């Protein structure tokens, strides 16, 4: 039985948007629950605007969740005090999508990598420097790069610096928010390999947020599929790619180009509904090819079947 590292329960995040007197509430995530096991890579997939990134950030409280609990190491991250949270952040790191915006242009690589140790007050300056040089080598950069500024590097190299920054505090888990989607395909493979190498060495867990199902299949152990702020299906990678259960997952899978033994492509009609006014019943019923009468009125409960979870009336 795998040991849980992070247990997210009924997490919600509402954003209040719009000008005064015409304020609307956008429900970015609407009761998301999942478990991240130790040493595991959990994929979080879904189309743009489904709340993947919000979920990833709320899980390490970079965004304050509106309600719900995040159980980590015996504490509820959602209710821990600010000072304790800052200390806990050593364990919970994040890698960003845009390697151009994620590094301060006014700091050298060495300053960028020393900063986490300074903030968490770890080591003497000699120890910090040694640690920085180690990590620079570990992510495949050279010692001479330490004195350079971010703009002197390519996208792939910047992403290596971003990974180095997230690694330097020896975190227990890293949220990777589309870490390769801004990179060339050849560089993507290098960065994915690097992420797998450092995980093999340090044994941390990843929450890997992506819309690229091929990448997710390559790196993830389990996958949670999100639609309009909800997790509709959670399963092991093999089970999900062999036999997707939820109609939305099926549609996603059929859209992977060049898939072996591909069945007919399922085309979803219409757009993703606005998260400001999600549909009643099952959020997916407006676009679901197998929608039934009950789907319009009652939201489906997630049920467990054979080690996987699916929220669809077809399986009740």
């Amino acid at each position, binding site marked *: 039985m795998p040991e849980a590292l992070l247990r997210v329960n009924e997490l919600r995040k509402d954003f209040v948007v719009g000008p005064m007197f015409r304020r609307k509430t956008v429900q970015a995530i609407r009761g998301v629950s999942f478990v991240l096991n130790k040493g595991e890579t959990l994929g979080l997939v879904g189309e743009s605007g489904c709340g993947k990134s919000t979920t990833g950030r709320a899980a390490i409280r970079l965004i304050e969740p509106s309600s719900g609990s995040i159980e980590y190491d015996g504490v509820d991250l959602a209710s821990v005090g600010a000072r304790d949270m800052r200390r806990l952040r050593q364990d919970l790191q994040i890698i960003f999508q845009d390697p151009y915006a994620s590094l301060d242009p*006014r700091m050298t690589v060495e300053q960028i990598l020393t900063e986490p140790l300074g903030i968490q007050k770890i080591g003497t300056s000699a120890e910090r420097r040694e640690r920085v040089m180690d990590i620079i080598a570990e992510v495949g950069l050279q010692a001479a790069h330490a004195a350079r500024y971010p703009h002197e590097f390519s996208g792939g190299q910047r992403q290596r610096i971003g990974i180095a920054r997230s690694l330097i505090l020896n975190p227990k888990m890293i949220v990777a928010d589309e870490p390769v989607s801004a990179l060339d395909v050849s560089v993507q493979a290098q960065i994915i390999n690097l992420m797998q190498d450092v995980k093999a060495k340090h044994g941390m867990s990843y929450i890997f947020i992506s819309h690229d199902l091929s990448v997710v299949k390559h790196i993830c152990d389990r996958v949670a599929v999100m639609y309009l702020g909800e997790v509709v299906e959670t399963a092991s990678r093999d089970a999900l790619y062999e036999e997707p259960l939820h109609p939305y997952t099926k549609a996603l899978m059929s859209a992977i180009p060049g898939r072996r033994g591909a069945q007919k492509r399922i085309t979803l009609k219409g757009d993703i509904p606005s998260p400001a006014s999600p549909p009643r019943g099952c959020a997916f019923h407006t676009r679901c090819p197998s929608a039934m009468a009950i789907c319009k009125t009652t939201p489906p409960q997630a049920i467990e079947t054979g080690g996987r979870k699916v929220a669809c009336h077809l399986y009740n």
Partner: protein
Amino acid sequence: MSIAAEQPAVSTSREPSFLVLLFSRGSVIAGSFLIALMVLTAVLAHWIAPFDPNALNIANRLQPPGSAAHLLGTDEFGRDVLSRVIHGARTSLAIGIAIVAFAVGIGTLIGLVTGFYNRVDMVLSRIMDGLMSFPGLVLAIAMTGVMGASSTTVVLALGIVYMPRVARIIRSAVLVVRELSYVEACFALGATRFYVLFRHVLPNVMSPIIIQATFIFSYAVLGEAALSFLGVGVPPTQPSWGNMLAEARTFIVLAWWMALFPGLAIMITVLGLNLFGDGLRDALDPKLKGR
């Protein structure tokens, strides 16, 4: 895994120091030369001015430049224009620097706070809007009316007039920077908001701050001129480029030199500051290093 293809050329030379970097720019050299010229003039005014700036000589009034030992001519009371321009450098530079320090110092602080802390933004930004809704000179005149005409009043009044503009520009720059991933990354590392604000946000809004500082200096010199012209600025016994211009206006057809030379002094100072400010901004930006 091969990453040889993404390596930039490895440079082994030591990074040049910031000052070397700064003064490798032609604009910085030219700018600092002009500023140094003005500052030296102000400091050495007592020794280099040929006449007492307030010595009246009615017999020699409104003499054109080059006549009777008056290199730049005399004004309507026969006072030596050159001496007044030299002594005016003291007042004008001091007032300009003080106004810039006041407006940019407080404006930057308010801009950082309103851009970064949503809670205070609503209140502070409305106060700034309120200050900006007054026409600048009217506000300054009202303040001198309350506090009496003096250099200190001019600095306070113009400082308060220009401060909200700085605050608003810095606020908008902060709003952009605070959404960037490196700010979020720093929070993820466990930094406090205060740390992020001064370690990451402030350095990345330096460019607009420097540009504002050089602009405001020119506005300040002109604003002081306007207040002096209206009789609520620096008293005429203390020559400033502003009150010289103000007096010269009446005689512009008769004695063009009265207006030209203080005007040139303002222009040279502002030019020097802009050249220096541009160079400083570029030297502070690592992306433009070595260009």
